[in-house]
């Protein structure tokens, strides 16, 4: 009997229990547990019998090595035939295969070719797949500067091989030196290389391993690109949307881009980087990084963190400056900027394409202004993260980071047509949706319109026979809705995707796990459905960790999940637990996709720590200001990222008492949100709530009321009262009513806020304390001192425990108590709180 999957667990359980028992007890156990299931009983009995007799069966992992276990790879090759070709000699040997010089065996013409064959012994499925990959890539490339695929086949003993142009040339750097090429000619040659790489990109191929030894120049001075051994077809990924494709050919790692070193997704801009390094070397005679030991770690660190010296300065230090290299002043300015722009650490800040890079060189040569500018913006986010590794987190900001991660997914969807697609169906589907040509020239569709259209077509499209693809699309659409604040639509699509994925791959399948992470994020951050989210996280967090460790789940998802759990822990008042989770999330930083890393979520989360626990508002404000300056520099037009930062700044300024400036920033962000999103969403709601708080502080009650009314309208439509900021909004509305003589309404609202907080949060949570404080303040104003006192005392005591002594929240609680006792005519009791 071969037990099926579900039965296996049972067999295992009983076997393990029985094997521990004496033989006579075993029978009793099996009688009882198998309960007449003879097949099961027989299976276990036969396993137990086998167990009795295993002896040393496979116990000793020992074998002698037969002399011929490893066949000799270096057998003479000359004369061996591959199809119509006869080998002449070995000319190269890579990790996977050997390259031979060969010639056609017939007398017609003795054309020399290069033949690449997999090495015997390494013909594993994986490696054969990679090898065929290269062959397939070469087959679709036909360009004068790319070594051509001529033929292919399988040897008599089944090894695949392929035949390509034999390039008799030398590496581009050596060629330039040997011929003492002047700079302009180097640039011209380099632009020919760019043209070949652009051609490859247009054919959806990223080379990923551009370096001098792969770019040979013939005697005629023509460059030829070789070795697409680790190139990747943009459309041939295994896993959707999160795949990372690093490819560090480690012999010359200096040409690898930071994203390759870090194991992030490789894009066409990774080739831009490698070409930048090549140009650096061509112009200066030097590699860009100064390395002492050349260990992998040092190289990786240099590539990801070290700023290369400007070419104009490096050229003066070359040991052996190329005879023809120009005076540094010819490099200073344009060429410095062009090279360094191509080599920026963040892919998004490089030239967007090799064509643009090449074009900028042409403009420089022709004396036209170039695009490249001196890079003045430091990498603030990463530096910030380096500086602030402590802390807990504010919920609203966690929310931003969660949603930010999802925005990243949308960005990936946008590039889906070119960069992705397990299934062609996906590319076609999204291609049609996102690049639909029939959109009017005047009316750019909003993202929401695109998504609505996509989900409608998903329902009607012929994808019934590809449920996995369909579910994947549904997930992406769901996540995109989530990023737009369309929570119901998001939940609908995510739930739909999850059902299918669970049916196909089980709830622990990668696809289902990913969707669940987004869904739990939605529950925790937007819907306020903490119980549901908590249940998921408790059950699956270990699984997510394990999958990420194995490399089967991208760190983006684990990070999103950790952020979500931290949010929950904080909502439960467990800041320490939240802090530990965020620290764990921080350790994943190097593995995040650029989109996820660049979003301010992580930095913001840590900022919030500073805010919430240490009262270090000034520093927090400085950091957000820097971030805003960086975002503005990068992109002139309004963006969700900029709006989120402005809102964050507004909230810090508000808590720090700088209400006027807070309002300016909040209003600018509000304008952006209204422009970016056709419908109101939670982010706008939070922004308006902060505005209402600021206006209320400035005693502009009617303006404040208008804002808070719209806030609550948005909250009610988009989320539930459990949502962490909902009660805050009620408090603001209540306090406004209190100031404008609507006493009953005010009291009702404030008590409602206190009730919601008490129902959803532990007693120690600072948000309960602030609600109690607001109610106490109102009661004080009503001269109901005795009623106010317990609320204010409890608020004060709680905040004193959970907040830094000089934090504005703690100060405010003290002030409220002092005000109470003064109004109550008990100045002696007010004094200690004033003095503090």
């Amino acid at each position, binding site marked *: 009997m*071969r037990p099926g999957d579900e039965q296996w667990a049972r067999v295992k359980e009983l076997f393990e229990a029985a094997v521990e028992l004496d033989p006579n007890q075993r029978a009793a156990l099996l009688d009882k547990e198998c309960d007449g299931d003879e097949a099961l009983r027989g299976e276990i009995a036969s396993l137990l019998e086998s167990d009795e007799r295993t002896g040393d*069966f496979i116990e000793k*992992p*020992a*074998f002698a090595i037969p002399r011929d276990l490893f066949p000799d790879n270096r057998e003479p090759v000359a004369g061996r035939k591959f199809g119509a070709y006869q080998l002449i000699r070995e000319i190269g040997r890579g990790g*996977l295969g050997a390259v031979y010089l060969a010639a056609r065996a017939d007398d017609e013409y003795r054309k020399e070719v290069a033949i690449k064959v997999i090495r015997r012994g390494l013909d594993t499925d994986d490696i054969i*797949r990679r090898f065929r990959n290269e062959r397939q890539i070469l087959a679709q490339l036909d360009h004068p500067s790319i070594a051509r695929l001529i033929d292919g086949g399988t040897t008599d003993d089944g090894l695949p091989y392929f035949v390509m142009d034999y390039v008799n040339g030398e590496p581009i750097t050596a060629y330039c030196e040997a011929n003492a090429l002047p700079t302009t000619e180097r640039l011209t040659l380099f632009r020919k290389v760019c043209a070949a790489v652009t051609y490859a990109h247009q054919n959806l191929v990223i080379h990923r391993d551009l370096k001098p030894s792969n770019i040979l120049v013939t005697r005629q001075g023509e460059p030829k690109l070789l070795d697409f051994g680790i190139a990747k077809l943009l459309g041939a990924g295994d896993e959707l949307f999160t795949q*990372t494709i*690093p490819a560090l050919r480690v012999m010359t790692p200096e040409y690898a881009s930071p994203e390759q070193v870090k194991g992030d997704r490789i894009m066409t801009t990774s080739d831009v980087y490698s070409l930048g390094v090549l140009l650096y070397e061509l112009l200066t005679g030097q590699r860009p990084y100064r390395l002492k030991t050349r260990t*992998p770690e040092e190289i990786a660190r240099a590539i990801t963190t070290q700023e290369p010296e400007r070419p104009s300065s490096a050229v003066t230090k070359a040991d052996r400056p190329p005879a023809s290299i120009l005076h540094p002043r010819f490099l200073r300015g344009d060429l410095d900027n062009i090279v360094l722009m191509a080599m920026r650490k963040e892919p998004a800040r490089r030239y967007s394409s090799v064509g643009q890079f090449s074009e900028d060189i042409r403009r420089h040569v022709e004396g036209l202004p170039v695009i490249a500018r001196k890079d003045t913006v430091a990498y603030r986010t990463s530096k910030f993260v380096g500086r602030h590794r402590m802390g807990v987190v504010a919920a609203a900001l966690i929310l931003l980071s969660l949603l930010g991660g999802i925005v990243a997914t949308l960005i990936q969807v946008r590039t889906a047509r070119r960069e992705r697609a397990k299934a062609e169906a996906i590319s076609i589907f999204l291609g049609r949706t996102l690049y639909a040509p029939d959109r009017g020239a005047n009316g750019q569709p909003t993202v929401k319109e695109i998504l609505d259209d996509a989900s409608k077509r998903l329902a009607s499209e012929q994808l019934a026979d590809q449920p996995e693809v369909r579910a994947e699309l549904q997930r992406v659409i769901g996540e995109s809705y989530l990023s737009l604040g369309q929570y119901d639509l998001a939940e609908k699509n995510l739930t739909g995707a999850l059902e299918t994925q669970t049916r196909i791959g089980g709830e622990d399948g990668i696809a289902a796990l990913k969707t669940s992470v987004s869904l739990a994020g939605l529950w925790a951050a937007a819907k306020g459905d903490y119980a549901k989210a908590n249940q998921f996280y408790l059950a699956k967090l270990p699984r997510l960790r394990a999958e990420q460790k194995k490399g089967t789940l991208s760190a983006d998802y684990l990070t999103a999940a950790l952020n979500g759990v931290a949010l929950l822990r904080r909502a439960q008042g467990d800041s320490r637990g939240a802090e530990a989770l965020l620290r764990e999330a921080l350790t994943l930083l190097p593995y995040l996709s650029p989109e996820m890393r660049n979003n301010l979520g992580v930095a913001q989360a840590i900022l919030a720590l500073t805010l919430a626990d240490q009262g270090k508002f000034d520093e927090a404000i400085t950091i957000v200001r820097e971030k805003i300056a960086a975002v503005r520099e990068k992109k002139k037009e309004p963006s969700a990222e900029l709006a989120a930062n402005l809102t964050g700044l507004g909230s810090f300024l508000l808590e720090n008492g700088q209400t006027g400036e807070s309002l300016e920033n909040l209003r600018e962000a509000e304008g952006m949100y209204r422009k970016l999103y056709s419908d109101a969403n939670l982010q706008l709601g939070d922004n308006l709530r902060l505005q209402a708080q600021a206006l209320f502080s400035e005693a502009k009650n009617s303006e404040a009321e208008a804002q808070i009314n719209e806030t609550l309208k948005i909250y009610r439509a988009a989320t539930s009262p459990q949502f962490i900021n909902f009660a805050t909004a009620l408090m603001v509305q209540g306090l406004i009513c209190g100031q404008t003589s609507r006493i009953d309404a005010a009291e009702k609202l404030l008590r409602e806020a206190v009730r919601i907080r008490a129902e959803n949060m532990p007693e120690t949570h600072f948000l309960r304390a602030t609600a109690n404080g607001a109610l106490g303040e109102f009661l004080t104003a009503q001269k109901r001192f005795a009623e106010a006192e317990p609320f204010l005392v409890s608020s004060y005591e709680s905040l004193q425990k959970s907040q830094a002594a000089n934090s504005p929240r703690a100060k405010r609680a003290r002030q409220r108590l002092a005000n109470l006792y003064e109004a109550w005519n008990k100045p002696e009791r007010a004094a200690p709180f004033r003095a503090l």
Partner: protein
Amino acid sequence: MISSPAREDVTRVLIDWSGGDPEAPARLMPFVYDELRRLARQYLQRERPDHTLQATGLVHEAYLRLVDQSTTTWQNRAHFFGVAAQLMRRILVDYARSHRAEKRGGGWDKLAFDEVLAPSAERSIDLVALDDALKDLLALDPRQSQIVELRFFGGLTNEEIGEVLDVSPRTVKREWRMAKAWLRREIITEDDNAARR
């Protein structure tokens, strides 16, 4: 300890692997294969002909030679041994298979290594049958199959396997016992069926 380019490379690939590189296993194999081959040759040249080299000892030695332990984590170690054990299995089974074809009936496939197998073993192990049975076990219980691969072909101890798979050595021991019983039964039955035929 030598510092060879291969050492840098392997360490690098392992770090990439932890970073989520799906191609890392394929990139790692050539290095591990080369090192296993190099070590095997070295032994065969140096040792007396009657000295038995244990294939699985190779895996440990390859690890020491290829991986810079000061910069790698247990996760890297896990990946390395996973690949090495897989490769060793492939090499040995391929070898057995090709000799079975060559000397059908000659029993070469049972790798006549009786001297290193305990005398109580009922018969020497048919590696091809073991490989087939392991594939079946993989479908039923991936972890048990992996434990067998790491232990039998990779020469790892239960403690090491626990580290590699991130489970307790006790779990490894329990799973190992059942896997052994299951595999033995499958192989014997198959043999018997074959004999009857």
